[in-house]
């Protein structure tokens, strides 16, 4: 453990497959990162908890559903109350929604089916969030999507998530309400995002745009620590 570096935790569920990508991204922006098995309660010392992409429990039955019951997930509200940050990416977003940390639901893509595609996303104004502290409204980011159940739905319609959607699709690929590609909770500290910012963290691989989120989180955590 490197002394002084803020700690980020990547929760690993059975079937997670984006855990290493997220780990490397946290490390790249300066966090000291560690893996944490989902079947154990969280230890209290991390500033950020990440729920990675993948197919927890094979995405069987309904994506994110089986994982949402894990002890590590049950600890997230306490972590947030204490000022911690949370990011759930793709399957991680599905888990956050299934666990009730974010409202609404993520259902089957419309048109149906798993799709991988590079997308353009637009940053839009939302409740203040440490994740978006460095992003300018109107910025366009290039991120890849890779999911089959990313169609965001809220029973009360778009006004229910007004001011909570920091990223929208330029061209909606999955039928999401209000073109929402990401969602914040009321505190702005819990972020769910459907495309993959952690896979846009190395210009060699096509885009470094996703790094902005992680850098902003790192800066916020640093500031808080002072």
């Amino acid at each position: 453990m490197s002394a002084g570096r803020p700690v980020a935790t990547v929760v690993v569920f059975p079937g997670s497959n984006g855990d290493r990508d997220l780990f490397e991204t946290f490390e790249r922006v300066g966090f000291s990162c560690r893996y944490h098995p989902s079947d154990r309660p969280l230890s209290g010392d991390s500033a950020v908890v990440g729920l990675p992409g993948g197919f927890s429990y094979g995405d069987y039955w309904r994506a994110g559903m089986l994982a949402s019951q894990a002890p590590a997930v049950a600890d997230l509200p306490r972590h947030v109350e204490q000022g911690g940050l949370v990011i759930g990416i793709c399957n991680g977003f599905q888990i956050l929604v299934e666990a009730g940390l974010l409202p609404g639901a993520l259902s089957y893509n419309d048109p149906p089916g798993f799709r991988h595609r590079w997308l353009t996303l637009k940053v839009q104004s939302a409740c203040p969030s440490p994740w978006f502290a460095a992003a300018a409204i109107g910025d366009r980011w290039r991120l890849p999507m890779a999911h089959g159940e990313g169609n965001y739905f809220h029973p009360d319609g778009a006004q229910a998530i007004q001011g909570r959607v920091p990223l929208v699709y330029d061209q909606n690929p999955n039928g999401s309400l209000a073109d929402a590609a990401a969602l914040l909770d009321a505190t702005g500290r819990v972020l769910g995002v459907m495309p993959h910012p952690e896979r846009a963290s190395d210009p060699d691989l096509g885009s470094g745009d996703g790094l902005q989120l992680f850098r902003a989180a790192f800066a916020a955590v640093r500031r808080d620590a002072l």
Partner: protein
Amino acid sequence: MSLSAVEVLSADGVRSVAASMGLLPTEVDAIVQGLGRLPGKTELVVFAGMWSEHCSYKSTKTMLATLPREGARVLAGPGSHAGAIDIGDGWAFAFKVESHNHPSAVEPFQGAATGVGGILRDVIAQGARPCAVMDSLCFGMPDSPRMRHLVDGVVAGIAGYGNAFGVPNVGGRTVYDPGYEGNPLVNALAAGFVRAGEMRLGVASGAGNAVVYVGATTGRDGILGAAFASEELGADNTARRTHVQVGDPFTGKKLMEACLSFTPEAGLCGCQDMGACGLSCGLFEMAAAGQVGMDIDLGAIPLREADMSGHEILLSESQERFLFVVRQGAEAQALAHFRRHGLHAAVCGRVTESGRVCARLHGEVVVDLPAALVAGGAPLIRWPQSAALPLPRPYPEFGAPTDLGATLLALLGQPGLCDPVGVYDHYDQTVGNRTVRGPGQAEAAVLKVPGTRRGVALTVTSRGDLLRADPYAGAQATVAAACRNLACVGAALVAVTDGINHGSPRDPVECRRLAEVIRGLGDALRALRVPVTGGNVSLYNESPHGAIPPTPMVGGVGLVDSLERLPTAALAPGHTLFLLGLWVGEPSASFYGGWRTKGAVGPVAQVDLAAETKLAALLVAEVERGHVAAAKDGGKGGLGVALAKMCARGGCGADLELPAVARRDWALFGERPASAWVSVPAAHAAAFRESAEHHGVPWVQAGVSGGDVLHIRDLLEVRVAALAAAFAGGGG
């Protein structure tokens, strides 16, 4: 040890059981002689599986031995789980191709899915973490609902396994040709990185060590699937439906994590995937490789269905299972390790010094066989070969089309030439954060070597249409295409894995073709000084429509020294366009020729490997110097289609002038090896010309890129928007 009484067969019994399972009389003789007694019932079933073509390579072993295997970078060659090469910086790269043709014909989704799962486990067994898969698919024409269903099922199966497992699909080939109407080809390649010193062996050792079963439970899945893959597909596949295997990428992923984190320090002595022939394959091959024996209690195997018989347990091809040899004393921790990962795990036996695998069920001996006889003792077969090959139906005379632009648009929209995005957008291409170039982004896929700014380039090629005309030249062309594709991203070909897909060797014509394919591969590889590190043979690809065209699939690996100057395959404005190679207006075997003549086959252009070597050297050198913005080799559809694809992908036109030729259609759409288009930033054009001269590569400085029209003076003028629309196609 004596066999259980119920296992014992009379001599007549042996003959009739053996015949019903496809064992040849000579093979029965070899069994009896090798054992010094009659085999029992279960033993015969084990032989039928392990001596099937799929497991024993009995018809091709001699021919395959002629392929070059030596190379300075080779760390593991044919015979290991997956081959592996040294790629520097302390890394090895493991890669191998596998076919799942017959299972996919019967059950497209699960057949393709389990094909991907199986080849991933070979790479994992090598100790590598998979970083990429590629797939090479050959279907009949996609215009019937039946074929659409098959294509959709196969693609969904490949996607379903790879996406959930978490390995990116970085490219492939999709071919539509009436020759695959009754027998599709589904080949998958998997690759992974492993620390050079941490590779694993499928070798049992150390008497007293434990034999440990890990993974999913064993059910009645795909019993004798390997023997089934060695038979021709009859018109009626329905009777085989009880054989279908079901893949489970979730368990596959857990199995990978458990395997890769189980180390020699924790007691790992050897491991092997239970693939074709399942448990039998794991037991006999590991014992034979280590020249040891094993005592196995089949009652310890975790079963999905109670009351399975000995042969069902031994031959089940249930997916997601591994066999380990674990150091004596480390069993308890090993079992705890695997169970913590959510897997079934059980000690099912011990390593012995006997050289024999002895298996009991309910205390009765059902199998007691010498490991070496079962795994490696199958008598080799030399099927008769016909002296000459029938000549292909030559092209009838046909004139050049008057409107070459219209011809280009029509060709570009053909299934098999248009953009296969409808296939690859079902595949996760970026999971794992290694994909520098994925499907549609360059002539070859490129993966980032962990912790460096270097890359590994990967490509797969297959050209059954050319081999139909000339298996020798076509096989060479397949290798040459792999070399060129890699060169277009600046990588020299350093090793290949080959997947041979062929008809029945019992037909003397097909057997001769098979020999020609292997001779062509071997000659091309020797000329390029490139070794084969492993591969796969799938025979008996026949249907009521006849044998498939011989279709070797070549998976080529190359190294990219710096990711900084990597070209794409998309044209951008303002660059100088060079044509490399010859611009010749003569007929040649080609997609165009077949399309114009509704299936006739022309003369295959002879492959000039010296010219290929020069072209590749030029491209590698110029990419390295940062002189190449985009590059694409002339392949299927010829130079005309290659250029149109570059325009369509880049949304950019060009204005070109090329030397006059007799037949402009053949110059544009005929297929000659050793050719490519290269776009060069104008500032480097002079240096590029010099370099082409220096490397001895024929070149034409054809013009410049830009605008929204592709204009080749005196030949054609087409709007880029029209090219893009045609390329977007409908054929998938």
